[in-house]
């Protein structure tokens, strides 16, 4: 190891790691998380039994809350969002180098990647209005008089799969995803590529082939409130979480693969920090050497977790088809069944990033309050110290763990109910056909809770 350098003066005097580690003691490790996991697994299994036997599932009905004219056309909000993006990129290129003080890093990793999905889980697809491509693309196509496409739509969601994979690698494996300059370069280049492709193909392609639009759109399908826009009319609906999912057309093969990758990304994001993973790859979690030492093995890890996730989900679906003696094409049943996993992705995203929201979120507030470091109070907040005291507070951390537990368990129960609904729609009658999927859901529940409660090395 590097610390045992060539200049070591005998064992007793060998220079070594001086500072131990900065990992805060974990209160969650002192909680009876094993009991929580067993309880959750039991609840999911029993719910499956009950649902399979009773054949009486909650009705997922949409209720129209109000109908009104569209106030702000999407093209306009998208264009404003594009202008805001330009401003953030400018800050990324020229602003402070400290990522916790640079609004580009903060808005992207905490705002877009954490806060927006959480808000979308309640209020529906907020990204639709914020999408920085649709407005500019529409405008440019109008200006140059372009109407046709180049056939990109034939690729389905595969470009989004490639985009998501690249994004996950950048987030989880790349050396400095937080660096404002690196982030500005990556976001700028990505925006340009998608912009050019969408100008050639048409702005609707963004919904299909751009990973962020697809991912946030999927997560928002869980929301109990959602807005449907039809020309100049907007209708606000409410319904049980998941109601929108049952109204969706079945997922195409590329969308199924996209969801497996999204789940794998969330799983690996949790897994790669655990003592378990660190021990597996020969890293000491108490003195993690840093990302540069694990880029190769974590790239393989991400791909392996994707393969395992896709394999187990598609395998369970195939086994269920066999036990249920289905004969139709595989994707005809996999597509609908996969919709249920949107609930798991949404629940896990919320649980996993809850603490990030509470920590980095403070930096975002502070930076938005005073973006130019002049002592402004644009949000009306007095200058304040970022405070992480809750991380070592028994009551606060117990409450956070309980929230995460509720999110994970709730997401899996919802996924289970949706799966039962969707299979009923396919005309499944044999209860045993649900067995593989139920087993998988139980496994996933435990995995999610284990990832959140495991000791972590970063």
């Amino acid at each position, binding site marked *: *190891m*590097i*610390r*045992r*350098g060539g*200049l*070591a*003066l005998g*064992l*007793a*005097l*060998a*220079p*070594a*790691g*001086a*500072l*131990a*580690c900065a*990992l*805060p*003691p*974990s209160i969650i*490790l*002192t909680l009876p998380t094993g009991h929580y996991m067993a309880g959750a697994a039991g609840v999911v299994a029993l719910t499956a039994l009950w649902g399979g036997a009773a054949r009486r599932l909650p009705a997922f009905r949409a209720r129209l809350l109000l109908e009104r004219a569209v106030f702000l056309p999407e093209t306009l909000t998208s264009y404003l969002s594009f202008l805001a993006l330009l401003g953030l990129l400018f800050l990324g290129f020229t*602003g*402070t*180098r*400290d990522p916790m*003080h640079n609004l580009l890093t903060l808005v992207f990793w905490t705002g877009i990647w954490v806060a927006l999905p959480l808000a979308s889980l309640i209020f529906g697809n907020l990204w639709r209005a914020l999408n920085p491509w649709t407005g500019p693309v529409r405008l440019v196509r109008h200006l140059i008089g372009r109407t046709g496409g180049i056939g990109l739509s034939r690729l389905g969601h595969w470009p989004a799969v490639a985009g998501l994979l690249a994004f996950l690698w950048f987030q989880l494996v790349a*050396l400095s995803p*937080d*660096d404002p300059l690196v982030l500005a370069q990556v976001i700028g280049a990505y925006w340009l590529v998608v912009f050019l492709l969408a100008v050639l193909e048409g702005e609707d392609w963004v919904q299909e082939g751009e990973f962020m639009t697809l991912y946030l759109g999927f997560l928002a399908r869980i929301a109990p409130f959602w807005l449907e826009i039809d020309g100049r009319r907007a209708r606000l609906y409410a319904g049980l979480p998941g109601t929108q999912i049952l109204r969706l057309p079945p997922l195409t093969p590329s969308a199924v693969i996209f969801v497996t990758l999204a789940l794998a990304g969330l799983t690996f994001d949790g897994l790669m920090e655990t*003592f378990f993973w660190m021990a597996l790859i020969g890293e*000491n*979690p*108490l*003195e*993690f*050497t*840093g*990302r*540069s030492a694990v880029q190769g093995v974590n790239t393989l890890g991400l791909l392996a977790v994707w393969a395992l996730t896709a394999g187990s989900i598609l395998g369970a679906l195939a086994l269920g088809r066999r036990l249920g003696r289905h004969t139709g094409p595989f994707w005809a049943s996999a597509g609908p069944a996969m919709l249920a996993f949107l609930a798991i992705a949404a629940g896990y995203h919320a649980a996993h990033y809850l603490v990030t929201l509470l920590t980095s979120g*403070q930096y975002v507030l*502070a930076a938005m309050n005073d973006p130019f*470091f*002049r002592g402004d109070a644009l949000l009306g907040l*007095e*200058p304040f*110290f*970022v*405070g*992480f*005291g*809750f991380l*070592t*507070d*028994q009551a606060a951390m117990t409450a956070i763990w309980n929230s995460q537990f509720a999110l994970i368990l709730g997401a899996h129960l919802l996924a289970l109910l949706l799966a039962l609904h969707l299979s009923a729609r396919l005309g499944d009658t044999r209860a045993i056909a649900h067995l593989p999927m139920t087993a998988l859901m139980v496994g996933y529940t435990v995995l999610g809770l284990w990832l959140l409660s495991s*000791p972590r*090395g970063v």
Partner: protein
Amino acid sequence: MTTDLAGLKTNRRTVLGGLAAGGALMLGAAPRFVQAQSSAPIKLGFQLHRTGIGAAYGRWYERTTQAALKLLNDQGGINGRPVEIVFEDDGTDPKRGAEVVEKLTTQAGCDLIFGPLFSHVVIGSAPRAGELKVPYLVCSEGYHVASGMLNRWTLQPGITDVRAQVSSMAPWVMQNLGKKVTMVFPDYAFGHDHRDFFTEAVKAQGGEVIAQIAIPPTETSFTRYLPQIPAETEVLYHVMVGPAVLTFVKELGEFYGSGARPQIFGFIDSLEAVDTAAPGLEFLEGTHFWEGHCRVKQADAPEWEGTYRAAVGVDDNGASVSDARDVSTYAHMFSCWETLFVIKKGMEASGYQSTADRQKFVEAIEAMTAFDAGLDHVQGAKTFNGKTHQVFGQQFISKVEGGKLMRVHATSIEDGVYPDAVDYTAQSF
């Protein structure tokens, strides 16, 4: 911006803003800077563990450094020039660390670099500083500076190294707690340092380490190791760290129950940034800890101690003034503060004007021998060894009383001094 209260706002725009006008604005606002040969700001690079495993320390290192910078500029800067600090995240990664050293030197044009804490990052970055011939002042506690492992451009003038810290504990522990010691430590370099340095120091004091219990770093339950503690143990020395520390304390409490237990001595690294009065840590009542700087303000604290706490924004318990649960990395973070004031002394002693004077700056630091306690050296007086590039200071032993760390002993500086292993001044620049 984010970590500053109202009183600290004036200068931070010039520090962090990246706005071209920042320097000029500040000069206008702070007329106390005397006319110097160059009135351009002195630009210091700070290698910050903003993300990665060091982030919890990085947050407080930045906060302390911002406070020190404010004070420094209020006092007139360095050589009559205002001072700016460019903070750059190294991800607590040695490869990025070397890149940061290069960026701060060649792109940001910093006069010198300071601030890194984690040993592996320091060891990975220092060679680049040597190649670029830029002064590199580390705040890492590592013995790697004084061991001779690094280079002429790397110095540690702000904090005592771990070898001196550990060795200086032995005399008091032997005389007051007992002579038969059992050590419980994590089984990797950090734990090995404690094992080796303390065992050696105990022997020199006529004591004996009767058992060394090495615990694998990935272990999160300790019940099967505790029975290995010999019954005749008089002092239990522990340096467990990481997420499972609370579990360790809890299980140790269950192991001894309400019966007799040995004296217990630990390093605050285990509970740095953790409230010792938190539920679950009751077992620590009456046990002793090494502290590099007393987290709880002591009754006889000098006047500058209060000024320092107010500037950084920590209360008398060492917690953030805005969140009593948010305990600082108090035993370590003074190193950034003190290093900045050593930089001031070094630049003033060498008549530092531009990057051409970097070598003169290093030589000026090497010529230093002692620092007096005061607002610029808040942790206490120190001696500096120019040959080994390492500073030595007093250490503290505190006892947990009513959940608070109360000082029971302050070592002398000499308690931690050991023979030189290197003479950097004999090396070429």
